[in-house]
């Protein structure tokens, strides 16, 4: 890199831009496998006078080349930046020190910087610019999902909006998508996915479903009728802290990430923290347990946010909570074997929903009340919903039945979402046709 001519202000790109350009070109060189910059440093030297400047220029002339000037020797008051290959560092530093040239290390290891930049670039590529390039058949990170939500809401602002209903324990936003054709306080349907963070198929299904709703609105008679009279709310990442943790540290994490003083283990099972039979059979008071119910009902911000939202709204008619795995569709109660008052209706509806699901890809689901179909569990979402007056409260356990379990291959995302949609649609249609 040649220095600029002496005298007058320097033309050309600003120092920051130039450095960026350099970094990019190095990335390219590195990516092409031509160069490795591990251990190379960029030194900034301040020459006091012309004599010192000329010493630096001497370096430039050395053969074989020992330095690569990013900002060449120009005037004594201007800093000189030079890239020094790792193998020459000792020599160059000795040279500078012996001639009394003061220097500082601007970049300690270029390769590290390059790697970080490359990573950041790849990352920003993944944060898609529009939802049409978003892959519905892959699993995504929290950032990718939240980015998709913003794009999605922008693209379909006529019927979709985003609501923040609270913050998680680690202070992440808790977001809900609202699908509405207008009106005030329409009767509403609630769907949540990801309350247990390791159940990745549920978030993926939720995202596909959101897109399905906007795609089919105006085309599918049943869906269009539903949206004319009702609002749909979808909470895609009900446990954002847990979900981030499944990506960073522990793929099989289930609970949230709440910490309490004096308690050695982390996290509360969000599906045991509701105010319905709290602390009963099928939940655990041991904080180290996967079904730890927490210190008190709704103690967890992720649960409290939903309770507050649904209660304040006051007009929810159906609630569907989506989990994996086991291939089941169930209704309350989980906390006991006692049947709910409209058990017969829920049984018939579940049966219809499961048959609609089966017709898509031939996947068989069990159905029935939670306590008789899966196991006794207390303090769960759908029990609370039912006790709060929401007559149509259902819990899904999506694919599969244990071959892959939580680690369901991404190739099964779209088939799972397609069949689940038919069951959801059946439930929503019934809710529409049975106002109360």
């Amino acid at each position: 890199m040649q220095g600029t001519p002496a005298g007058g202000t320097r033309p050309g790109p600003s120092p920051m831009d130039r450095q960026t350009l350099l970094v990019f070109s190095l990335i390219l060189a590195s990516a092409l496998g031509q160069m490795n910059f591990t251990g190379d440093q960029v030194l900034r030297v301040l020459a006091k006078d012309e004599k010192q400047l000329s010493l630096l220029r001497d370096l430039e002339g050395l053969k074989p080349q020992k330095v690569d000037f990013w900002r060449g020797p120009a005037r004594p008051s201007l800093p000189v930046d030079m890239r020094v290959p790792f193998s020459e560092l000792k020599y160059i530093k000795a040279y500078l020190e012996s001639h009394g040239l003061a220097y500082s290390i601007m970049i300690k290891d270029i390769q590290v910087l390059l790697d970080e930049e490359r990573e950041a670039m790849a990352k920003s590529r993944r944060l898609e610019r529009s939802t049409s390039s978003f892959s519905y058949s892959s699993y995504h990170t929290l950032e990718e999902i939240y980015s998709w939500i913003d794009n999605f809401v922008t693209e379909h602002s006529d019927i979709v909006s985003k609501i923040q209903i609270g913050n998680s324990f680690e202070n992440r936003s808790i977001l809900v998508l609202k699908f509405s054709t207008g009106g005030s306080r329409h009767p509403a349907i609630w769907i949540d996915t990801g309350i247990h963070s390791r159940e990745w198929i549920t978030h993926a299904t939720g995202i596909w479903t959101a897109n399905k709703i906007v795609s089919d609105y105006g085309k599918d008679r049943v869906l269009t009728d539903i949206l004319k009279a009702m609002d749909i709310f979808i909470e895609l990442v009900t446990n954002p802290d847990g979900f981030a943790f499944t990506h960073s540290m522990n793929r099989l994490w289930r609970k949230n990430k709440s910490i309490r003083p004096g308690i050695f283990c982390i996290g509360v099972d969000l599906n045991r923290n509701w105010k319905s039979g709290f602390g009963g059979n099928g939940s655990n008071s041991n904080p180290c347990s996967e079904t730890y119910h927490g210190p008190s009902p709704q103690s967890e911000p992720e649960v409290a946010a939903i309770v507050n939202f649904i209660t304040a709204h006051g007009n929810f008619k159906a609630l569907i909570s989506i989990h994996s795995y086991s291939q089941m569709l169930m209704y309350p109660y989980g906390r006991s074997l006692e049947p709910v008052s409209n058990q017969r209706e829920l049984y018939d509806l579940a049966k219809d929903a499961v048959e609609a699901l089966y017709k898509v890809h031939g996947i068989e689901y069990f159905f029935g009340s939670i306590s008789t179909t899966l196991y006794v569990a207390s303090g769960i979402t759908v029990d609370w919903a039912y006790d709060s007056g929401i007559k149509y409260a259902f819990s899904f356990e999506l694919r599969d039945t244990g071959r892959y379990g939580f680690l369901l291959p991404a190739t099964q995302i779209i088939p799972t979402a397609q069949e689940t949609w038919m069951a959801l649609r059946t439930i929503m249609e019934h809710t529409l046709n049975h106002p109360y």
Partner: protein
Amino acid sequence: MQPRRQPPPAPRSGPGNPRPTAPLLALLLLLAPVVAPAGSRSAEDPAQPEDAGVPRRLLQQAARAALHFFNFRAGSPSALRVLAEVQEGRAWINPKEGCKVDVVFSTERYKPESLLQEGEGRLGKCSARVVFKNQKPRPAINVTCTRLIEKKKRQQEDYLLYKQMKQLKNPLEIVSIPDNHGHIDPYLRPIWDLAFLGSSYVMWEMTTQVSHYYLAQLTSVRQWKTNDDTIDFDYTVLLHELSTQEIIPCHIHLVWYPGKPLKVKYHCQELQTPEEASGTEEGSAVPTELSNF
């Protein structure tokens, strides 16, 4: 037609919960052959839907336990079977003693993309008697299955797998199988199959009336060569127990040679209590130890 009686609720709740105190001796629960309408799986009698789930679930779990045992005993990583469908069964539940289940079920091959697979959806049929002694693990199992794969083909596939394993670099630097997105590299498939075989033994030994296990993930692998050409395989898996939702790390050490009975030793980590320090992980020489519920 035998009258159908409602069984006492099976003790499926979490740890520390009281057993049902029904003062009954033995209950016979007879189920007609299960031919449910396509896609739906519940009671045939809608008037009593609430008792439908219990026996069905119990039959499924008994079938799975029988398969863990069957797979272990067969000792063949290329002939592993998984449950396809429960066809019929009955259960005798005695709250004081335990539970006995007779079950007939169909199976399919675990390996989805076998080179020597003949035809799509080849189903085998098994019948099993599974006896759970009250809350004790290691159910007594008597199981027979129709042959799914010809013996010679099975031996060929086992030997192929054996050779693939022998050719792998040692020590293996495996991160996770499947990866977090559920994908298994075909090149790593033999490792997974062998790990599943060893895990089957562990899962059978740990199964009780209320605890049922699935293999979630293989998280670390080491393989040593031995002089007598057996595969000496040391690895860690994560098991998922359904009723408590716990993930249990188990360290497993197996020795295998095609056609020879499988040798397995293991140690599974216990559930932490708030007062304990983190659980210990010991070497493979330690005999069986159970998760503490």
